[in-house]
């Protein structure tokens, strides 16, 4: 990192939020275990090149205090992927993707605060890896839908078995999704939003 102006600083008009002054920003989380397809999903529907930012797990000032005592100590950071969808002159939607590690409490609080809901990506071949993520989302009180990411060559699984394995409520939407495909990803997101709307009504 550094503060010398870099090529990243040269933004084009499209990088800015169109109609910014009138826009309300909302966010939805796209979560799931490592390599489940979060970055792919965000990339396939974002209107901007997906961005990534790091959240340090220790606040800057505290970290320096720590360094006085512990030479060479490193602080873990976690990368947060995100994309943007301008949906009208009034609403711009941000999608934030992050893995579900419970130890990143600070980041989870940041992400979860004010989120409309969460789309949980699930690989049916690795269901157990999704338990911690689902627990976290429930812990933060976020409504969610499940997007089953069907990887090539894997057998189709019955939705009922998956619901049982993940211990889902009957009302929780489950939708299959190819995260590489824009329409498929958009359909999964739409399913979530329709569910959120039902819950809000």
């Amino acid at each position, binding site marked *: *990192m550094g*503060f010398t102006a*870099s090529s*990243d*600083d040269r*933004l084009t008009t499209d*990088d*800015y*939020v*169109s109609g*910014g*002054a009138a*826009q*309300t*920003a*909302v966010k939805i989380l796209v979560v799931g275990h*490592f390599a489940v397809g*979060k*970055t792919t999903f965000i990339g396939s529907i974002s209107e*901007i090149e997906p*961005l*990534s*930012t*790091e959240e*340090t797990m*220790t*606040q*800057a*000032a505290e970290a*320096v205090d720590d*360094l006085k005592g512990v030479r060479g*100590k*490193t*602080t*873990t*950071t*976690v*990368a*947060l*992927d*995100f994309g943007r969808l*301008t*949906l*009208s002159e009034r*609403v711009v*939607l*941000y999608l*934030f*993707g992050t*893995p579900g590690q419970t130890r990143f409490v600070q980041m989870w609080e*940041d992400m979860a605060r*004010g989120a*409309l809901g969460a789309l949980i990506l699930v690989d049916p071949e690795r269901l157990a890896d999704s338990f911690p993520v689902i627990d976290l989302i429930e812990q933060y009180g976020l409504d969610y839908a499940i997007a089953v990411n069907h990887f090539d060559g894997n057998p189709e699984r019955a939705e009922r078995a998956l619901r049982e394995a993940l211990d889902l409520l009957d009302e929780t939407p489950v939708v299959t999704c190819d995260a590489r495909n824009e*329409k498929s990803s*958009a359909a999964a997101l*739409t399913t979530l*939003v329709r569910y*959120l*709307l039902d819950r*809000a009504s």
Partner: protein
Amino acid sequence: MRAGGEDLEFEPADLVRAYVITKGRELPDEQQLSLITLVTAAPQDGRRPARLTPEEQRLLDICSAGYLSVAEVAGHTRLPLGVVRIVLAALTEGGHLMTRPPVPRARNADKDLLEEVLNGLHRKFG
């Protein structure tokens, strides 16, 4: 772009630099500069350009051509989110930056927003 999701090691030197950049300021109010708070440079009103630190100037420059979310400012500059928040807070305090925090969540507001989101998704993706 770095492949997201993995743990990254953050070197102590970077942390010290981050601290110097932010002059050890307190972290700003979480709501005021949330990930999706939209920020833009305030109109100059013919005022004399203020004395800003290079990092304040750099972030203000990025915000001068329109609105970006706090997360996007961090993403474009590749600076840690915590640092970006602090510098943006200082700019806001100094009157150089305007912020649009997201609306507080309330059930009715949510419903209107969700409807708008759903309609927008339909318009965009059919």
